[in-house]
């Protein structure tokens, strides 16, 4: 059980590392947020599951479950708020982008 917990925790930390690498490599704020949000969510969830499996006697499984639910519910909300704020502030998408429907609609006044 302790070994399983350790492996899951290790997987979580690898996911978090890949997320950090993604934030470093991606070309603009939106793509960075993509890498950041997904990796931190799954990484933290795996990390918490690993901890709860590795310490079966801690009596903390309920708390860890609540933590996971809150992370799943709030992490995407924060990244949505950041992405929205970035777009409203006029931060441009990378040159490699193919389209920006939101910008087009804001200019034509359709997205009001």
């Amino acid at each position, binding site marked *: 059980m302790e070994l399983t917990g350790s492996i899951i925790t290790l997987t979580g930390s690898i*996911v978090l590392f*890949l997320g950090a*690498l*993604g934030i470093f*490599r*991606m*070309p*603009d704020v*939106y*793509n960075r*947020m*993509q*890498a950041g*949000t*997904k*990796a931190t*969510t*799954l990484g933290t969830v795996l990390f918490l599951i690993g901890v709860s499996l590795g310490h079966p006697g801690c009596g903390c499984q*309920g*708390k860890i*479950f*609540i933590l996971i639910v809150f992370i*799943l*519910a709030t*992490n*995407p*909300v924060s*990244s*949505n708020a950041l*992405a*929205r704020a970035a*777009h409203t502030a006029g931060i441009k*998408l*990378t040159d*490699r*982008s*193919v*389209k*920006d*429907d*939101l*910008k087009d*609609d804001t200019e034509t006044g359709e*997205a*009001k």
Partner: protein
Amino acid sequence: MRKAKSAFLGVIILFAIWVMLTDTSRQELIFGGATALLIAALFHSRLTVLGDIRLNPKSLLYMVIYVFVFLWELLKSNIDVALRVINPRLPINPGIVKVKTSLKSPLGRAVLANSITLTPGTLTVEMKNDYFYIHWIDVTSDDIEGATKAIVSHFEKYLETIFG
């Protein structure tokens, strides 16, 4: 009816959180239950958003299925983004696309927006009327219908039953 359902769900959720946070001795259970009832009674007019959840067998079954669908998508999205990040050529084709949702309930839309953010290569940026604006890391479809089908349809099937 709707208010009663909201209050009922509020009590259940609060009590579940309390049980998970504390021991299960009898005193604690009684105190937690009483507090949950009190909070739900005081704030039932603010809890109406919970009334969007439908409580029938089909909807409860879909909730359970949805959790697994969602976790599977979360896993896939991490592998997807990780592969793009490791690839030296950084194969991305990003853009912001517009999709249409048929969900009416605010809670259902919030869950949908959250789910979109955590699924492969998509990030909800803005929500206006019936449209979501979504940053897509690999744009494969140019029009609203195609993007809607690719991004939201497989979630909406379940959320429509759960939230209406």
